[in-house]
């Protein structure tokens, strides 16, 4: 019983972070038609910036917001320098096939991931870093038992909930959000009705960069930071996004929490090494049973 409650608590705080990662992936997928495999590389990079600030004596909160801003800027930079030239390329013989057109951005994002990880090695010697968030590390005591749910976990869940609510309001209630939904639906029609689709694209990269940096910041106090630690979060986030439906924002939240619980239960009831196999099992199960995810649209393939 204790284990069950512990697994539920851990699953909640982890799931909140995975929801954030999945949301970042879904945003770029909707905005630019690209699954950004470099996303957690970007998050790693901005989290390293935060840890450098903290090591140099700046406050946690300054580092926190600087890292999120850096994540947004890096996202826009990557869109302008790599992804936009790529999508504006003339249709060469190689790019004329539909399968290669979807494969090339994937390869570019992997290149970005490689460059960011190597840069982190060059700048920070790839050293393992961790930083404490300014919260008590002891779990809350409920009915005389110490739960594996600290005030930091509460902070995580709150921050993620606020972020998700703000994102939903942004997309439903503001003009820019409407423009983003329109261009996700049909790039060409959006352009014809006067929406600057390039700007919208860059904005999705910015929001996604900020969201994933936030995820990196929230993950680091519980697991040390190195250039490769966040790769696992990317895999989990991708699976969460596919579970929920790659083109659905609410779906990414549902997927994130499902993955959070699955991983936390595997951690408590089996060995941590089974995580990878569990993720693979969940992914394949969803792809076979419901390939478009829980809340996904009918068909995302364009004929």
């Amino acid at each position, binding site marked *: 019983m204790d284990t069950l409650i512990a697994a539920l608590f851990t699953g909640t705080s982890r799931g909140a972070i995975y929801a954030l990662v999945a949301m970042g992936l879904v945003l770029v*997928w909707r905005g630019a038609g*690209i*699954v950004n*495999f470099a996303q957690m590389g970007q998050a790693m990079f901005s989290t390293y910036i935060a840890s450098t600030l903290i090591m140099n004596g700046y406050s946690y909160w300054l580092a926190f917001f600087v890292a999120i801003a850096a994540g947004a800027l890096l996202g826009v930079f990557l869109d302008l320098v*790599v992804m936009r*030239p*790529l999508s504006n*390329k003339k249709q*060469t*013989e*190689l*790019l*004329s*096939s*539909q*399968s*290669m057109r*979807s*494969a*090339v951005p*994937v*390869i*570019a994002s*992997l*290149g*970005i*991931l*490689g*460059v960011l*990880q*190597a*840069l982190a*090695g*060059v700048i920070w*010697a*790839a050293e393992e870093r961790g930083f404490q968030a300014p919260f008590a590390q002891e779990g809350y005591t409920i009915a005389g038992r110490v739960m594996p749910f600290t005030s930091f976990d509460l902070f995580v869940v709150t921050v993620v909930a606020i972020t998700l609510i703000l994102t939903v309001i942004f997309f439903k209630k503001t003009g820019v959000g409407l423009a983003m939904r329109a261009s996700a639906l049909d790039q060409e029609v959006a352009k014809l009705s006067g929406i600057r689709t390039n700007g919208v694209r860059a904005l999705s990269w910015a929001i996604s960069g900020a969201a994933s940096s936030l995820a990196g910041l929230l993950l680091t106090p519980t697991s040390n930071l190195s250039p490769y630690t966040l*790769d*696992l979060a990317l*895999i989990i986030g*991708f*699976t969460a996004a*596919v579970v929920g439906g*790659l083109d659905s924002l609410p779906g990414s939240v549902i997927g994130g929490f499902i993955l959070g619980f699955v991983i936390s239960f595997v951690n408590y009831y089996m*060995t941590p*090494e*089974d*995580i*990878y*196999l569990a*993720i*693979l099992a969940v*992914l*394949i199960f969803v*792809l*076979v049973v419901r*390939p478009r995810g829980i809340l996904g649209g009918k068909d995302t*393939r364009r*004929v």
Partner: protein
Amino acid sequence: MSSSRPKSIVRKSSIRTALFGLLIFLAARSFEPYNQGQLAVTLILFIGILSIVILTGISGQISLGQGALMAVGGYSTALMIINLEMSLWIAVPLAIVSGGLAGLILGTVAARLSGPYLAGTTLVVALAIPSIANRFGSVFKGDEGLQVDVGYPPEWFVNTFGDPSYEMWQFYVALPFALISLFFASNLLLSRSGRVWRSIRDHEIASALTGVKVSRQKVFVFTISAAFAGLAGALYGLRGSVGPSTYPTSLSLMLLTGAILGGIRSIAGAFIGSVLVVFLPDWIDYAVHSFELSEQVSNYLPALVGGILLILTVVINPAGVAGGNHLHKHK
């Protein structure tokens, strides 16, 4: 007409293979042992990159999990050599079968997927497969891995060809397999199967309308490609040990980088790519050794340059160094 055509394909492939074998053999003979060892690795990765050329370049399915398929080949060979005391000349070819079987299973799932879905799923596979080694530690020996190597040349070989250096022997072991792979890949790409796969890549629906059974063909490509990867993995493991660290995720990405840099659509590109991947770190070292960079910088420089080259290739010339048009004569 129809009877003369297959013959010309086989002849063309044989000439290519013989020419390649001769040139690479002469090159290896003139090299120092260190470079001979590198050339052996180049041949092994050439087979691995061929598996990506066939899968991604020809049939248009992207896979980030070739490293995992290599691991399947490597583990099966190592287990057969250690537990059944098989000769490597039997155990390595059997890796073609084990790799192909793994590809058949993966392909059955993957045939339904495309683009980023396929990329993500194969990436998860690349991470998950090595963790099996720790899960079933009694068989696979966990992180420590299985110790296997190419051993020493048999006596008749030494008597006929002289005593090669250990690195040269590694090269001699890899060479016949690389040549067979080259021959098969060349035949496949020039034959009907190659044309069918290209049609799937270029337009799946149009291809299906001409009577191609797309799903079945996709599973078939996956199996063939995985057989190549399994063979490459078996040879890759024979450099000393087969463990999770022999086949990390970065190996899959390295193969993909090589394939893109060289030219994703051609066999020549696969070879150029494997040369680049193996020799680039040394060339970079040579280029910057006068700058006295700190170890911190020089350790990560090859990865940095590789990544930048990958991005530049994709943005500027996605066809890679070798281009990709000469295979289209048969369109």
